[in-house]
């Protein structure tokens, strides 16, 4: 407590403004003010506006009036919206399983000493670093119906005889998008899980091996439980980003063919910005919120349970 006594005496010599900052509460308020202003203005306020917008009948250049839940009723009856909801869950679920499995595999491959490890690790992160839109264009070019290098390779290997129209068929288009999302997400999973793996003491593995545990058992009973806390947080981030994804689908298909590959964000964009139905667009965006909220709450509760175990 000598520190506070001294600082009280000390603060008498400071200017009035700085003296106020000696009080932790005032200092905290001053330090948090810029953040609070920016986040309030561009997150809290738009959220509030978005709710109002989704309850009105606003279109571009045409101020609307309050219509209650009419927009939500309308999208509920919209078959494209139902496809969108299904797509989003399918897209998020499938990509997350693959990203976790492949990312963990890659992390295990990287978790040993070999020459060139640093360089390989640096290169592996490239899909995650390079702006998504730009790398997705490379994929779009690789999936081009006429000039696809993937078709060329499959043809040369004798696996196909006619071209595959990757983005023209609804199921194939969805699969292509899923592949690209996995491609982009695996490095993030691998590098963060690798950091988790490196905190696990090798002695635990050696002890388990001496006790006769096979590699698979060692992974399942030693590595996996110890890695659980990191895994859960990584999955949480990935699920939210994937659920709310926009860029990848916008570039690859724009939601097509025949609105078969829309996610929440792309459909909201198409209606809200493309067609100018601002209220309906805002309603579709906001429809993500309850789902995201449940995902976050469930995940956070689960993380807490794992961490206190």
């Amino acid at each position: 407590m000598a520190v506070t006594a001294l600082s009280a005496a000390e603060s008498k010599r400071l200017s009035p403004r700085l003296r106020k900052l000696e009080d932790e509460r005032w200092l905290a308020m001053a330090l948090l003010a810029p953040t609070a202003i920016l986040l309030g203005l561009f997150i809290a306020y738009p959220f509030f506006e978005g709710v109002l917008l989704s309850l009105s009948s606003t279109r571009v250049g045409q101020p609307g009036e309050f219509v209650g839940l009419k927009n939500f009723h309308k999208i509920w009856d919209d078959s494209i919206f139902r496809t969108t909801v299904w797509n989003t869950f399918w897209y998020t679920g499938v990509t997350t399983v693959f990203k976790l499995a492949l990312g963990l595999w890659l992390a295990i491959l990287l978790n040993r000493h070999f020459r060139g490890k640093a360089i390989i690790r640096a290169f592996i992160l490239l899909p995650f670093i390079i702006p998504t839109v730009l790398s997705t264009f490379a994929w779009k070019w690789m999936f081009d119906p006429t000039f696809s290098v993937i078709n060329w390779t499959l043809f040369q290997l004798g696996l196909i005889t006619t071209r595959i129209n990757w983005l023209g068929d609804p199921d194939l288009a969805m699969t292509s998008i899923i592949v690209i999302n996995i491609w982009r997400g695996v490095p993030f999973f691998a590098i963060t899980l690798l950091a988790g793996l490196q905190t696990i003491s090798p002695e635990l593995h050696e002890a388990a091996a001496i006790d006769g545990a096979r590699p698979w058992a060692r992974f399942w009973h030693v590595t996996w439980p110890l890695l659980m806390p990191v895994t859960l947080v990584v999955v949480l981030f990935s699920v939210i980003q994937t659920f709310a994804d926009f860029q990848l689908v916008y570039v690859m298909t724009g939601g097509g063919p025949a609105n078969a590959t829309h996610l929440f964000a792309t459909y909201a964009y198409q209606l809200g910005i493309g067609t100018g139905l601002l209220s309906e667009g805002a309603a579709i965006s906001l429809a993500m919120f309850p789902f995201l909220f449940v995902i976050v709450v469930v995940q956070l509760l689960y993380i807490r349970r794992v961490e206190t175990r």
Partner: protein
Amino acid sequence: MIEGALWRRWVFYNLPLILFVFVLLFPFYWMIVTTFRPDGELYLPWNAPNYMPFWTNNPTLEHILYLFEETNFVRWMVNTMFIALVSTVISLFCGVLAGYALARLNFPYAGGLGTAIFITYLVPQTLLFIPLAEIIRNFQLGDTPWSLILTYPTFLIPFCTWLMMGYFKAIPKELEECARIDGASRWKAMVYIIIPVAVPGILSSGIIAFTLSWNEFIYALVFLSSPDQKTVPVGVTSELIRGDVFFWGPLMAGALLGSIPVAIVYSFFVEHYVSGLTGSVKG
């Protein structure tokens, strides 16, 4: 790690690793090949005879020249750089101060505010872009770089704050107390003692914030409309596709050149980037 015979190492480690690296890097190789391939070779059907997709013997700069001469590509690069730098600086400023307050000061509701920051950290941009577009228009910011400079911090600040909180928490309390016994004010102890110690964390947050702003797409797509205001991802998307016609050569050249600033920054600070990335997922 317990390792067995040489062949086992190849089958279980080296081959899968080579496969991973190949798949993860192939699209970039494809981008480079396409950038330097003349149009005549580019648009050969996939089953044309003697077609050699993985290499070209007639490299050309025509696509890159097209980009510089016929489009506003240079302008887009400058715009993106300016927006990314300014929004990164703003976010670092706010994030460092807020992170310090939340990690090292005792005040009412500190825990609640920390949770609030974590929640905003999880808010995706696609949730709010339509009302935000209206607000940007009402503030007369539409079609200016400021529409992005002021909105990018909404996802960068929570990230920087979260990361900085981790770094600040790791600094021992005694460091500050020593400075205060020597007569430094609370403010001075923060600015001259604690923040310099946290410089690695500031670098990590800054680099990730920079790459995130370079990557951002939906706000830039919605808030900007004139060709000379656009950022690289939006410019490439809207100006190199006319109706159904894709200008693949210039498109790939744009994708390649547009990735280079990010790749350079990343290559200089790989270790900081990785430590920031792994720090960002620590609960």
